[in-house]
């Protein structure tokens, strides 16, 4: 028997436990993607129940359905355009009144509704009793009790879906009525829409050309009355639009004259009044407003004196978890990949194919896999922070500082992770809901000096500076990175992404234990996205880099080069290095530094070893291990052949700090921003910035005679 296909969509406030219910319903049968054109995440899953094959769409968590945030626009567009068979509204039962506010708006979209009162246990423990039957009657929709964290109610939700599809709920339809002044105007607008502007409903529905999509007339009238940005915009595109717009201005003015407030405020007030009324009838509160556990915890975690030290401590733990704990598995992956490479190398005839396989493909796969431990552990940490409710507090504590730099309190986490590795750091920007905050954070995070840049610094410092100043040199690099990030964030905010600041208004949810299932699904989801979307690009780029450094592998006479230095000099990468020499010469660099910087695109740590190869330092491993002899020989040759001074070495470190993070970062950025525009922009701005800063420092150094 063929199963019946059903589509349901989950809507609800952030922190209503919607994700938990989604995970309970679908388990591991999930797919994460992006809605086209926006960076809003699209999550879909499947559930099987009886003879139903149910597609579950997890809408972004929202408090309302206005046109101001992309999340809310996506939520309402999906409901209207994809017309799910049933809309499942997840509500936090312990905070029912507030959650019902969204319900009032969902009802206006005229899609059948099922209410799920989640976290019922918390609500009951607080002494609330809810009359489910009465609530269903008042709202004209079936109500199910659930405790997502204990997987209670999952079966009941599926059963309610099945029952709905098989028949009707038997509940009378209930619409929210507004005060009569508003209802009168809504009536007028609806008449205008239906008589004079039949076309409007069609146009408003769909500009793509399909005709079977129509916005509910009453909803359109409400949105037009409250001056909804999106619908008013569409009004301008149709015939008669200006006539309607004039009528709307009159309607709003009439209401304002009578009540003294604008319709938008009144509509919000009436929705809350409705929600309050429903709660008053169907809920029995114990009346106690006792100091909850959450408040006790916050008295410590958000304490004026302790708040910041505790925050820093938690961030330190997150960093240690990600990088210290992630270190050994990374080494195993590294060792495993090298061993595999050696084994393959030993069992194959030396030649191009073996080089492609070992250095190109196996090396590339290793380059993808090596980030896995960090990503898994970081998202374990983030799942704990978000699931417990601390992430909102972290933003609360840090927002003052971050806001001054044009960022958001939550930008702190990705930027901190950036000191370890920019790849997981960019993925961590997902905790920022606002697209502009998120984009600015993504653009400046690469300036946080990552772990791969450290070996370049330590080696160059060992080669060109005395141990006494080494520490200060290193510190100055980190400090310059942070300073540039702050400056660039402000610049981007002002010139690149101008406009009104996004509201910070944010719920501080109650603390709860994150569930293991949610954590595992969250970790898996992120890791899989990375492997699938970014991993393939990283691999392709690694092979491309291999090609750049390998070809041409023979000279004009078709003879292989005698030394690897000669081979490298004549490769395409070598040619690029020579081609950029005039551009980097004002920074004190020769073409060898140019080749080194090109190689650093793949991974920054190889910048120095590439130079080592060009200087024909035989034992490059010893150089990487920072053995004194190799370092001295490197410093000697850099002085002789490239005219390196301590100043040039410092400028090279600066350039390494600022220019293009690395190809893996660009790949992840492409995945996170849905296109090549922002990675290309990042590449351009970091190179230009690196050049400018290096130029200023080099010229100033020469002029003042420092380090020459």
């Amino acid at each position, binding site marked *: 028997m063929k199963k019946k296909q059903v589509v349901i969509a989950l809507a609800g406030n952030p922190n209503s436990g919607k994700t938990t219910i989604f995970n309970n319903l679908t388990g591991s049968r999930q797919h994460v993607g992006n809605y086209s054109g926006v960076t809003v995440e699209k999550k879909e899953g499947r559930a099987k129940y009886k003879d139903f094959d149910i597609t579950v769409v997890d809408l972004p968590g929202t*408090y*309302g359905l*206005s046109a*101001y*945030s992309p999340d809310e626009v996506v939520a309402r567009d999906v409901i209207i355009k994809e017309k799910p068979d049933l809309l499942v509204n997840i509500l936090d039962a*312990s*905070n029912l*009144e*507030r959650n019902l*506010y969204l319900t009032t708006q969902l009802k206006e979209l005229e899609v059948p509704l099922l209410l799920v009162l989640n976290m019922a246990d918390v609500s009951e423990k*607080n002494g609330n009793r809810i009359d489910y039957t009465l609530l269903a009657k008042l709202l004209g929709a079936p109500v199910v009790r659930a405790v997502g964290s204990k997987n209670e109610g999952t079966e009941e939700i599926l059963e309610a879906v099945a029952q709905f599809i098989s028949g009707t709920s038997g509940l009378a339809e209930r619409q929210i009525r507004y005060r009569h002044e508003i209802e009168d105007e809504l009536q007028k607008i609806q008449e205008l829409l239906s008589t004079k502007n039949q076309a409007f409903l069609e146009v408003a529905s769909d500009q793509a050309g399909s005709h079977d999509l129509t916005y509910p007339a009453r909803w359109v009238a409400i949105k037009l009355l409250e001056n909804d940005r999106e619908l008013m915009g569409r009004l301008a595109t149709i015939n008669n639009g200006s006539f309607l717009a004039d009528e709307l201005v009159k309607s709003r003015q009439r209401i304002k004259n009578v009540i003294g*407030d604008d319709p*938008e*405020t009144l509509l*919000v*007030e009436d929705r*809350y009044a409705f929600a309050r009324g429903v709660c008053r009838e169907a809920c029995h509160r114990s009346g106690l*407003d006792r100091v*909850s556990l*959450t408040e006790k915890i*916050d008295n410590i975690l*958000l*304490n*004026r*004196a302790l*708040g*910041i030290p505790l925050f820093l401590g938690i961030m330190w733990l997150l960093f240690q978890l990600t990088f210290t704990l992630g270190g050994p598995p990374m080494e195993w992956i590294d060792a495993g990949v090298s061993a595999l490479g050696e084994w393959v190398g030993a069992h194959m005839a030396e030649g191009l194919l073996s080089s492609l396989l070992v250095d190109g493909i196996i090396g590339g796969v290793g380059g993808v896999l090596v980030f896995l431990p960090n990503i898994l552990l970081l998202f374990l940490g983030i799942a704990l922070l978000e699931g417990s409710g601390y992430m*909102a507090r972290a*933003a*609360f*504590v840090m*927002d*003052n*500082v971050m*806001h001054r730099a044009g960022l958001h*309190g939550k930008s702190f986490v990705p930027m901190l992770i950036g000191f370890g590795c920019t790849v997981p750091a960019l993925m961590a920007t997902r905790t920022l809901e606002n697209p502009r905050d998120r984009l600015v954070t993504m653009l400046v995070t690469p300036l946080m000096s990552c772990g791969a840049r450290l070996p370049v610094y330590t080696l160059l410092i060992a080669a060109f500076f005395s141990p006494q100043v080494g520490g200060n040199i290193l510190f100055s690099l980190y400090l310059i990175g942070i300073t540039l990030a702050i400056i660039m964030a402000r610049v981007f905010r002002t010139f690149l992404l101008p406009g*009104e*600041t*996004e*509201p*910070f*208004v*944010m*719920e*501080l*949810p109650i603390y709860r234990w994150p569930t293991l299932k949610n954590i595992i699904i969250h970790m898996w989801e992120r890791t899989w996205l990375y492997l699938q979307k970014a991993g393939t690009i990283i691999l392709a780029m690694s092979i491309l880099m291999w090609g750049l450094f390998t070809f041409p592998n023979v000279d004009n006479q078709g003879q292989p080069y005698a030394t690897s230095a000669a081979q490298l000099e004549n490769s395409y990468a070598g040619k690029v290095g020579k081609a950029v020499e005039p551009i980097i010469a004002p920074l004190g660099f020769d073409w060898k530094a140019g080749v080194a910087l090109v190689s650093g695109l793949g991974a920054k740590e190889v910048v120095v070893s590439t130079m080592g190869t060009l200087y024909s330092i035989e034992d490059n491993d010893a150089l990487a291990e920072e053995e004194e002899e190799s370092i001295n020989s490197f410093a000697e040759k850099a002085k002789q052949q490239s005219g390196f001074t301590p100043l040039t070495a410092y400028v090279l470190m600066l350039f390494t700090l600022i220019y293009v993070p690395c190809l893996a970062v660009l790949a992840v950025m492409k995945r996170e921003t849905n296109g090549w525009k922002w990675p290309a922009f990042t590449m351009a701005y970091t190179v230009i910035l690196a050049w400018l800063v290096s130029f200023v420092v080099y010229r100033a150094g020469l002029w003042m005679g420092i380090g020459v």
Partner: protein
Amino acid sequence: MIRTLKDLNPGESGKIKAITGNGSIRRRIMDMGLVPGTELVMERYAPLGDPVEVKNQGFHLSLRKEEADTIILE
């Protein structure tokens, strides 16, 4: 003198009279339940003085002082 939410010290409470400000911030504030007539308690200031945390019927909300300043109290 007009008193706004920003003027409350931790522990003090007030009732919302109107919300000035415009566009997305105003709507967001109202969508979060801060509508005229709502009673609020100022819970605390963040360790660095900004943002602030307010409470309404067991619901905790944080907002920046510049946003709190758009909420006029009775």
